[in-house]
């Protein structure tokens, strides 16, 4: 019971997820049936995967006391590159180069933020904006269609099944979900069970103390932005494959939504706290909310209001319990 209470006070995202699920059960009738259908649940998970993949990298930067708002820009440029480069080279090479582009941007971000000690929020926001502009140039402000079925199959294919949703038939698992799970396990391991992960917590917890303890703070923190950039590029490639199109518009809100999801999950911008699990929950919450609102047929302007309300409410509740805890001590 005590543990359950702790779970609820410490993990507001779980509470919000539980509330949404209860609402969907309570709605009853067709709404519940559609929402809880295996097709819808899988689709929901599938559409959250790219946000989660981006969130994994961002979580590292936030734990180390930074953040990364350039991921939206990296996402679109890499997405467009992954399609356009295929005109000049075999697909695998094009994809690798598109992902490496993200690595490069991350390296550049790291140089500015960690080496030159600039303000990460504004700098990465600026880099993201710049890249969005680059994406529009590259694509001539039009969607860039792909015409390679193999490319499209990366994100849209299924494993252990054929992807057909019929009665009494296992549809299989979408590739995207599998890729997300692999990344999730890797990052969860990285953060909990490696010295790199531990050092990030120390750096985010107190940069100077970490430095005086002989931790290579610059290299470690720099690395978080490199990883985050790489993951954003991977997300971009997967998104282009999923939609079979690259476009500069997909990145508009992504960076803010992902950073927000990470914080809502419990990885604070203050640094040194949080984790991969928390981020994933925070990001899945957004996917769930979107999907539930669509099933409930809520108009889009109300959707925005509701989303905003959830974000504010969770962060407020979080600060409130933190405050209560401080007063108790």
């Amino acid at each position, binding site marked *: 019971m005590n543990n359950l209470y702790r779970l609820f006070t410490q993990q507001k995202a779980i509470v919000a997820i539980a509330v949404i699920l209860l609402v969907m059960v309570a709605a009853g009738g067709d709404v519940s049936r559609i929402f809880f259908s295996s097709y819808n649940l899988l689709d929901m998970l599938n559409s959250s995967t790219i946000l989660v993949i981006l969130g994994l990298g961002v979580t590292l930067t936030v734990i180390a006391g930074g953040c990364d708002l350039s991921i939206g820009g990296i996402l679109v440029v890499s997405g467009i590159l992954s399609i356009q480069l295929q005109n000049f080279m075999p697909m695998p090479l094009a994809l690798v180069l598109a992902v490496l582009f993200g690595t490069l941007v991350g390296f550049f971000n790291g140089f500015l933020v960690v080496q030159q000690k600039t303000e990460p929020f504004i700098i990465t926001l600026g880099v993201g904006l710049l890249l969005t502009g680059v994406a529009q140039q590259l694509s001539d402000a039009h969607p860039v269609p792909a015409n390679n079925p193999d490319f499209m199959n990366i994100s849209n294919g299924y494993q252990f099944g054929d992807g057909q949703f019929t009665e009494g038939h296992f549809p299989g698992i979408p590739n995207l979900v599998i890729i997300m799970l692999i990344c999730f396990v890797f990052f969860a391991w990285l953060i*909990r*069970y*490696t*010295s*790199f*992960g*531990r*050092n990030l*917590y*120390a750096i985010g*917890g*107190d940069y*100077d*103390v*970490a*430095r*005086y*303890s*002989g*931790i*290579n703070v610059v290299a470690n923190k720099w690395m978080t932005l490199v990883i985050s950039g790489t993951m954003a590029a991977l997300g971009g490639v997967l998104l282009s494959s999923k939609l079979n199109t690259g476009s500069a518009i997909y990145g508009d809100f992504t960076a803010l939504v992902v950073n927000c999801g990470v914080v809502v999950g419990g990885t604070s911008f203050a640094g*040194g*706290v949080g984790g991969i699990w928390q981020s994933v929950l925070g990001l899945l919450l957004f996917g769930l909310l979107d999907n539930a609102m669509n099933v409930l047929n809520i108009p889009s302007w109300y959707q925005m209001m509701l989303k905003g309300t959830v974000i504010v409410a969770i962060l407020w509740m979080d600060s409130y319990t933190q405050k209560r805890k401080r007063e*108790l*001590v």
Partner: protein
Amino acid sequence: MDTAGSQIILSIRDVTKSFPGVRALNGVSIDVRRGMVHGVVGENGAGKSTLMKILSGVYKKDTGTIVFDGKTIDHTTPYESMHRGLAIIYQELNLVNSMSVGENIFLGRFKEMKGMRGTHAKARELLDSIGCKVSTTKLVSELSVSTKQMVEISKALSFQSKLIIMDEPSTSLTGEEMSLLVKIIHQLKAQGISIIYISHKLEEIFDFCDVVTVMRDGNVIDTKPRGEFTRDELITKMVGRTIENEYPERSRQVGETLMEVKGINTRKLHDVSFTLRKGEILGLVGLVGAGRTETVRAIFGADRVRGHKVTIGGKPVTIHNPKQAKDAGLGLIPEDRKLQGLVLPFSVEQNISMASIDRFTRFGFLIKSLEKGIGARHVKSLGIKTPNTKVAIKNLSGGNQQKCIVGRWMEIGPSIFIMDEPTKGIDVGAKYEIYLLMKEIAEKGGAVILISSELPEVLNMSNRVLTIYDGRITGEFDPEHIPADVIMRAALGLGGAS
């Protein structure tokens, strides 16, 4: 002095306060009289700070009564208690660095002062009344700790305070600044203002406190006029056991040269060079800001310094950052424990293990059982008082936190241990244990560079003392044979290098 004569300004009766798992105050009763300096002493975790925080309204008491200036106070906030005439000056001074002196004194009350002109005029008046010459338009960030304290005292006076609580005000003061503070305290006393003076330094208690209260483990052990206490009695009552000596015997196994530092030059330091021998404790003596901390930070690679030469064991080494320092066998206990020593979100165990992460990592994997062993070993060997090693470090008392930082470096086993104010804000018992640790490091063939504002500590622990004044080394002394005042003269830049 007749202590019973004057009127009681603050009466604390049977106050208790519990935190989860800890009884911080256990029926505490103290009377503070008007115009008295009331010293409160006790080890870390004795409950002094908790009591003061209840008085100022940061914490709520569980039971008991508090009567201040004739009024019973049940529930208060820091804001209310200030307006009621009870001011508290914290060790870590509560001033806004980016604002001016005058603005700080009347923060939030500019309207009452009829604008900025009135604010600065009144601030001038208050500062003059305690003999402080600092300009009211100067930014607080540019002031020394001592001047900041003056500003805090002026702020307290601006509320017509009847009682001022000073929480370890002397920790960062030099001798000269200290005597200025004492003068002001006497002056406040003469105006009928009472002062609760919390300190670890017994000299101060005996110097100017009228009444002394000893606390231990959340209880008041004794309250008596100062004259009725002997020094030994006070220490015994504080720690609850007899301490034979305040300092262990000096280690005597000084060997060959271990480290040689040549030509550190920065904006603040001028050609600082010295040697350090095996088995030696080398004391650096100087005023705050003279360059003691800058010197060790330069050696440790914490600040960007180029052009100096360091050799360890005869081999030249390059140290441009703390990591290289660690690899070269140096360890640093930094000056400011909270800011530079602890990762507050981390547990006791994680704070201890964070510098030696390689020791429990295999191919990048953390081996948690090894880490647990490291934490447990140092908690045991250093006698760190904590329920278990997973507790958040912020729940420990200052002395125990400091031991965790010592433990962090003991795990690495540096051959050269730099300790910058290692016993600052630590009680007598824990101090002695830190002294023993230093001695142990030296006797195992390592060396210690010790910086401390407490002169007796440096003089009693060191085999050799260097004085620093204005960024220059002004003398080298054997503290066993050279009287303290000669060393102090050199540290004050009054010549007499030997």
